[in-house]
């Protein structure tokens, strides 16, 4: 992910509203992807998490010390907002949706509907059965390409443990896809 230029970041840190808006435009799509997938496709929930994340960014941006890249810090803030939100589990009514329950897909995908509906539904079903942090990890690593070392720092886990967890998760996903595939055969 491309980092925003230093000048805009410095101005945003000093409270420049226009610079903060540019910051938001630059990073909003990737924060949205994380929030959307972590909230299991619930757009209202994802929007609330994203709003909380950017409010925190605005409040604590002045204290950002450049110990890491800005995107890493933003990931960290987003991750904590996601965890905070789902700690209040009662708000999330789809949390206990089981694998076989019918799933309503939220609108069309970015590919303009090229992906067959059944395949999208299968993917959504698999994702819904995962925990929020597994979904976060999957999106951050497989979609955004965040290095394992950075991701481990964001999630507060050991790099080795993260790699093992990711390997198990991908194996589990593959197994489910295979079962579905063999079922269709």
């Amino acid at each position, binding site marked *: 992910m491309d980092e925003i230029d230093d000048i805009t970041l410095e101005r945003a840190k000093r409270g420049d509203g226009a610079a903060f808006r540019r910051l938001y435009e630059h990073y909003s*799509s990737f924060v*949205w992807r994380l929030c959307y997938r972590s909230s299991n496709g619930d*757009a209202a929930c994802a929007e609330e998490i994203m709003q909380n994340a*950017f409010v925190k960014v605005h409040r604590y941006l002045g204290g950002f010390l450049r110990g890491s890249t800005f995107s890493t810090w933003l990931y960290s803030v987003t991750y904590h907002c996601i965890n905070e939100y789902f700690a209040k589990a009662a708000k999330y009514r789809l949390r206990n949706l089981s694998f076989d329950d019918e799933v309503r897909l939220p609108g069309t995908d970015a590919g303009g509907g090229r*992906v067959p509906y059944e*395949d999208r539904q299968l*993917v959504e079903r698999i994702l819904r059965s995962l925990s929020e942090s597994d979904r976060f990890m999957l999106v951050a690593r*497989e979609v955004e390409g965040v290095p394992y070392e950075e991701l481990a720092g964001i999630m507060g886990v050991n790099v080795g443990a993260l790699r093992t967890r990711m390997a198990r998760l991908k194996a589990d996903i593959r197994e489910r896809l295979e079962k579905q*595939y063999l079922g269709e055969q």
Partner: protein
Amino acid sequence: MDINAREKLFYEVLGAVPEVPAGVLEKVERSVRRSGVKRRATLAACLLLAFIIPASLVIFNMNNRAAYADDHGSMDELLYAFEFLNGDGDKDAYPLLDDIQVDDSAAVAGAAPQQPPSEPAGNQLTKKLSEKGLSNEK
């Protein structure tokens, strides 16, 4: 579609999400403005309490002391009066004692005074104190 293609598709769909909804930035800015106002109001209220309460106590205390002094004479004057009766203190420092005549010429010259004072200084002072409503008589 084979399993590998399906897996690849899985990760494609993973990254394919709807567009970022409109209006989030405005909500963020509104929320930031609201929390800023609330924080400033709380800080102002705390500062006000931190200064007003001690200031009120000081003013209240000063008012009480002034009211007491008006009614009963200054506490300092009272204290000095008792010191004077005991033979200590500087007469010139306190106006209460201005019109009390003290004949200390005998003490300076070392001889007995020619004329005794019309009234002992202690009696003059006691009279002045009783005029103000204070007396050390039992």
